[in-house]
């Protein structure tokens, strides 16, 4: 397997949507390719960081204001 082939299947490996045979091929490539191992690990970390950190937080006062505005209009029938 080449690095290009590995990268084209990177998401399937990360999202755990590969069959056993494909997984074995991907892992065999990883064993000998530091480049792809780094790419896999840091891509996983990228996703994890974005999942676990709130970058667009809705502050409680704004949340309450928006919520009140929405519900007031719904109660009036929009």
């Amino acid at each position, binding site marked *: 397997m080449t690095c290009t082939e590995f*990268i*084209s299947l990177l*998401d399937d490996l990360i*999202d755990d949507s590969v069959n056993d045979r494909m997984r074995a091929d991907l892992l065999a490539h990883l064993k000998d390719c530091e480049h792809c191992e780094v790419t896999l690990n840091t891509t996983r970390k990228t*996703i994890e960081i974005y999942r676990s*950190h*709130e*970058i667009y937080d809705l502050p409680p006062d704004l949340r309450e204001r928006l*919520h009140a505005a929405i519900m007031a209009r719904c109660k009036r029938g929009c």
Partner: protein
Amino acid sequence: MSTIQSIAGENEQHPDVALVERVRGGDVSAYDTLVRKYERQVFRIAQHITQNREDAEDVVQDAFLKAYEKLDQFQGNSKFYTWLVRIAVNESLMRLRKRRTGKMVSIDEDVETEEGSVPRDLADWAPDPEQNYTQSELAEILRKTIQGLPQGFRVVFALRDVEGLSTEETAETLGLSVPAVKSRLLRARLQLRERLSRYFKRKAAPAGNGPAIAPLSGS
């Protein structure tokens, strides 16, 4: 046994469906529960698309009001959440269009067609690299980095990886094919990874004093 399970599965109703039915029956307080449940997600998605706080605030209001008005069009064969997200994506794109004085805006914008290539940056990251930054510094890095992605990649990454929609739900929400979502997701992930490497890569150790490399087990 399997029959019992499948009957139970068929009768299993998502709690949102019961809330929607109550709203349709005139119980506005049930809609209050739905708004509370999803307002933060809708705000995040609107921010990802519009990249503007005031627009995102307007989108939250407009999306929930539109969903309320159109609630009898909700079929119940998709999740209420994905139906709501579709409305929020459309409202966000409309808001962008207004800001650009009527110019058409689509999620295909800036999406190049060539395939992703093998990443150039080989540098490994420091262990727990986010700990080198304060929470606000990190949030700024993450915002700046994702804002640099083309719109069509950013939205796919936000829905699929941040909001946790499935590939199929992301495709349905954005009106894209599943292969298109998969291709954009891969390129979004690789581009973000490469851009974040600038902040997170392991600092080069002084010559002769590098970090010890642990021996591989069994070698």
